[in-house]
């Protein structure tokens, strides 16, 4: 009678027997499986993995140091051992390309995670609380929505200067209302289901219901949102570096490289072309993943009859 396992069972008897959302076959796993069947998702994952690999392994295989002056400025690739030539002050382009992916990917991921945490929290609260809390939070989010993402970021950069943490935070905040709308719609729908009503009937604290019952059931649309927002984060973060307000010289960063080397586009296009292509391919990859997930979700909702 006094084995630890039995004690666990005893205490469970005292707790109300709540039907957990995740005791059903979890929808988001089904969605991932469904998405993986699609060619576009596989291509997207392949692209994303390849670019991440370049960004992670790059610094170890780079032939030079990213801040080393190895050739006259804007040397074309006919110099031996410099496959992509040199940039505007004579750094090796290939080296800087191999170093320059980390910042773009890491900053974009950080901004997306901030946007997701904020947006999901606000979406859960507004979707579940409703009434005036819902109304007032949504009005405030409308104000954030009134600024295009890049404009909101620039407004704050003009006040506090080009700081990385600020850019990541603002891009994250500018994602939040868009994610909150999705989370709110999903919460509104889930909060009418039996397992939530049952939990409410047992008098479980509302914040517990939100995070233990509702959150696990709205994972699928949030995963789709994550893919989509990651694509836009990469675009906005790279654009800010391109405008000169993101990473600062002498950092090796794809967005910054494009800006620094634009003037030499006619004589030595590689320090612009290669980062442009890599950023472009990366966003296509993440967008393919988001699209595959989105299609899988629509398919599952149609099959299970969830509106």
């Amino acid at each position, binding site marked *: 009678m006094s084995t630890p396992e039995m004690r666990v069972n005893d205490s469970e008897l005292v707790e109300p027997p709540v039907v957990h959302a995740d005791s059903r076959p979890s929808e988001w796993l089904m969605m991932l499986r469904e998405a993986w069947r699609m060619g576009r998702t596989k291509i997207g994952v392949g692209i994303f993995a390849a670019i991440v690999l370049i960004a992670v392994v790059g610094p170890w295989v780079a032939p030079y140091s990213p801040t080393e002056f190895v050739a006259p400025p804007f040397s074309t690739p006919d110099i031996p051992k410099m496959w992509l030539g040199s940039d505007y002050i004579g750094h090796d382009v290939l080296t800087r390309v191999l170093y320059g992916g980390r910042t773009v990917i890491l900053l974009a991921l950080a901004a997306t995670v901030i946007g997701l945490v904020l947006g999901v929290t606000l979406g859960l609260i507004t979707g579940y609380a409703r009434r005036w809390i819902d109304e007032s939070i949504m009005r405030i989010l409308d104000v954030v929505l009134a*600024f295009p993402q890049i404009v909101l970021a620039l407004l704050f950069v003009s006040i506090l200067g080009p700081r990385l943490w600020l850019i990541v935070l603002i891009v994250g905040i500018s994602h939040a209302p868009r994610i909150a709308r999705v989370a709110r719609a999903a919460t509104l729908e889930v909060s009418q289901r039996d397992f939530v009503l049952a939990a409410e009937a047992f008098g479980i604290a509302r914040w517990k219901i939100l995070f233990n019952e509702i959150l696990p059931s709205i994972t699928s649309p949030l995963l789709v949102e994550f893919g989509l927002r990651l694509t836009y984060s990469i675009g906005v973060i790279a654009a800010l570096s391109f*405008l000169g307000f993101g990473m600062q010289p002498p950092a090796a960063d794809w967005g910054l490289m494009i800006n620094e080397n634009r003037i030499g586009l006619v004589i030595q296009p590689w320090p612009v072309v290669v980062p442009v292509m890599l950023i472009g391919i990366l966003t296509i990859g993440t967008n393919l993943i988001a699209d595959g997930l989105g299609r899988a979700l629509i398919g599952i909702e149609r099959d299970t009859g969830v509106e």
Partner: protein
Amino acid sequence: MSPLLKLILVRVGLGVLTLLMVSVVVFAATQALPGDTARAILGREATNVDRYEALKEQLGLNKPMTEQYLSWLGGVLTGDFGNSLAQDEPVTQLLSRRVINTFILVGIAALLSIPISLLLGSLTALRRDSKFDISVSIGSLSLAALPEFVIGIILILLFATQVFNWLPAVSRVDPSLPIVQQLDMFVLPALTLTLAVAPYITRILRASTIEVLESEYVMMARLKGLPERLVLNRHAVPNALAPALQVTALNLAWLAGGVVVVEYLFAFPGIGSALVDAVANRDMPMVQAICLIIAGVYVLANLTADILTILVSPRLRTGLR
């Protein structure tokens, strides 16, 4: 008051409220500036306490915050955004020419992208899963993912430097010449904006058209045995008008933000490139003015679309009676 009018008035009220809150955010942003405007104007001379205090008094910086906000807002409403810190001229004067340039640029891009997205969006929805639909879908999916500057640089490489040398890579619009004579300056920026926005809007329109086509009233019309042409014209199109209007608004709203990066890329003399310069110079009155203009266009575009949607969509109109 009719319920329809009431609904519209509520929307307008919310739009005005959003604009007011936007102006508060833009105003409050400058107040968070380390130091104040007087210090920013004087620069090193701010150590001269007398001049600093005099300028503060002159600019009204000693008044309470709400009073400062109200007098600033009053100025904004009469078109007075104050003086530029970087150029010491009225912001309105510095921006007027640029607003026109941007307006023309966005106009050209909208004239190109709205018909393209309407056409492709509805055609792909009607011929769902056809080869045409799939190829447009893959193309638009890839293009919609690309940041504007990536598209712009690819266009510069193709048409202005490496491959062909047909168009200017830098849009040096000469203010002394009429715009019709220098339309070539507008081609690449407008094309970049179009290629960036049209695929995104096409995808949204395709999804909403499919939703209409799968709706119960369209199914009902089909079951009644109406010819497909009548089903589309009488039942599907009126309901798809709402998404079409939303598309137009989304286009304009998107373009309002898209001009920033694209104008900077082509050194196009509009408000987008002016914003980048103003941020680099920390020219706050200029930043405030441009942020307000862009956010204003964005809110107004969405508001107009909302109201038109209420007016044209049969479901909303009749649902109220």
